[in-house]
């Protein structure tokens, strides 16, 4: 028997509200979103009358990348920057995590620390440079300190919010099973908040990278941020482009690593 002719609504298209998008279509649009700006950049830079100092083309930037890698020890700049960002970020996370658990769990700690943190986080990290130089000096720790200042206060507040969002029923269920205060924090609140906390780490890692250039304002003589600043002095616009793009790429890779870790660590959130 032949299939009955169908009537009625068709499969919704991709432009219906919250409509479906196949994998192929997804990658198509993603590629489009990357290639169109690249094309525009390339097109604009090769127009007659556009000075390379104002807008170097993709080819110039690539050549500079190769030159930087072969002649100027690009990798040591990359590694020292990764080191500074990671150290600032890790120290920040190590202090923020226990504080956030306390702020999100105990109201007195929240009252004690949250207004203060809210106040400090609006202070510009750049403005702390003279103070950091005064107190910490001008060696590696000063760069790490700037990244710490830029990241820590936001991180604490966001993590405290993650902790506060643990469903009360999960906490109370433990209490009615006989959990004491310490056990409730350790076995329920921290465990329940973990996925959100890792997500917050991922987001704040991105912010840590945005403070790199600021951090390398402090008496640095290496690093991606420092290189961008130096290139500015010599009007090497193509080198500025390389530095910015590299920071973006490193950030993207780290972001993906965090997402991968999230999937591996919390498989029950990725069942479908």
């Amino acid at each position, binding site marked *: 028997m032949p299939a009955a002719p169908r009537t009625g609504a068709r499969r919704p298209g991709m432009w219906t509200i919250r409509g479906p998008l196949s994998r192929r279509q997804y990658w198509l649009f993603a590629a489009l979103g990357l290639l169109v700006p690249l094309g525009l950049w390339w097109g604009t830079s090769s127009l007659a009358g556009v000075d390379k100092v104002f807008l170097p083309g993709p080819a110039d930037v690539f050549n500079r990348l190769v030159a930087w890698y072969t002649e100027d020890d690009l990798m040591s700049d990359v590694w020292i920057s990764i080191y500074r960002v990671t150290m600032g970020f890790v120290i920040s996370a190590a202090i923020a995590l226990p504080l956030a658990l306390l702020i999100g769990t105990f109201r007195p700690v929240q009252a004690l620390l949250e207004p203060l943190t809210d106040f400090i986080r609006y202070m510009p990290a750049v403005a702390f440079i003279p103070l950091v130089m005064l107190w910490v000096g001008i060696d590696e720790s000063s760069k790490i300190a700037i990244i710490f200042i830029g990241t820590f206060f936001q991180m604490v507040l966001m993590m405290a919010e993650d902790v506060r969002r643990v*469903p009360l*029923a*999960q906490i*109370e*269920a*433990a*209490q*009615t*099973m*006989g*959990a*004491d205060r310490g*056990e409730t924090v350790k*076995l*329920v609140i921290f*465990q*329940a908040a*973990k996925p959100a906390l890792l997500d917050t780490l991922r987001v704040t890692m991105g912010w840590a990278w945005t403070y790199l250039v600021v951090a390398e304002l402090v008496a640095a003589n290496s690093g991606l941020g420092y290189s961008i600043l130096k290139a500015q002095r010599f009007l090497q616009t193509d080198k500025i482009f390389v530095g910015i793009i590299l920071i973006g790429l490193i950030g993207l890779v780290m972001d993906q690593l965090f997402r991968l870790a999230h999937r591996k660590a*919390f498989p*029950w*959130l990725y*069942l479908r």
Partner: protein
Amino acid sequence: MRIKISIQHVGKVFGEGRQPVEALKDVSLDIADNAFVTFVGASGCGKSTLLRIIGGLEYHTSGEVLVDGAPIMGPGADRAMVFQHYSLYPWLSVMENIKFSRRLRHGRENLREADVEAASGRADALLALMGLSAAANAWPNQLSGGMQQRVAIARALMGRPQVLLMDEPFGALDAQTREVMHDLILHVHRLEKPTLAFVTHDVEEAIYLGQRVVLMAPRPGRIDTIYEVPLPAEREQDMKHTPEFLALKREILARIRETSGMKADQDMLDQLNLQKAEAAS
């Protein structure tokens, strides 16, 4: 009959200062050992607050609540609680959820090898009782809402609590699943013999499950009427259609409406009925 829970002149005022809200006023009730008592009432009548006070999750501001003659001092494993939802631990498997109390200090203290084995056997037995044996290693969010609540009940029963407090445990389930859960919880009550206090907004559920139905009224939260359910101890779904059942249901619903204090809603309903009558004539 031994009294398990004694509530005497309990009052609860939320908030201090300018606008305190009287959630409970002079509530007195004795609940016998192994009884199954259900609580219904319009929203704001304090039925959940009362349950949470018994559970030690909320404190009362006047009167006293005694369990086995002793005043309650916060939550404890002798009074297990089942919540409406979000109480399971999504990072633990079904089995690990049920055995959660074994991770706690009080669950580990003074244990002999035999106790540990017995507990393991109990977890298995509870899984089987709840029809969850096949799902032992699943994560909670792989289960339907009804199955999740069965895990929550099994977990609450694990420590052999003498009192089981249930706060609208089936409120988020569909009607068919709820019927199954009703017979299951009655079975659990017969088998494990806890004293069971059960809060619901569903009058039919309250009558079908309860030996007594406590109707509470709002503003301030108080006990309005206590109904003895005129049904045999062994309940069957068909009893829901008997005249006694329906009469009691009608009576309780009418009383809830009277005490709800929702005058505007009531007036609007009357208006609609009036219009209908006029259109018919």
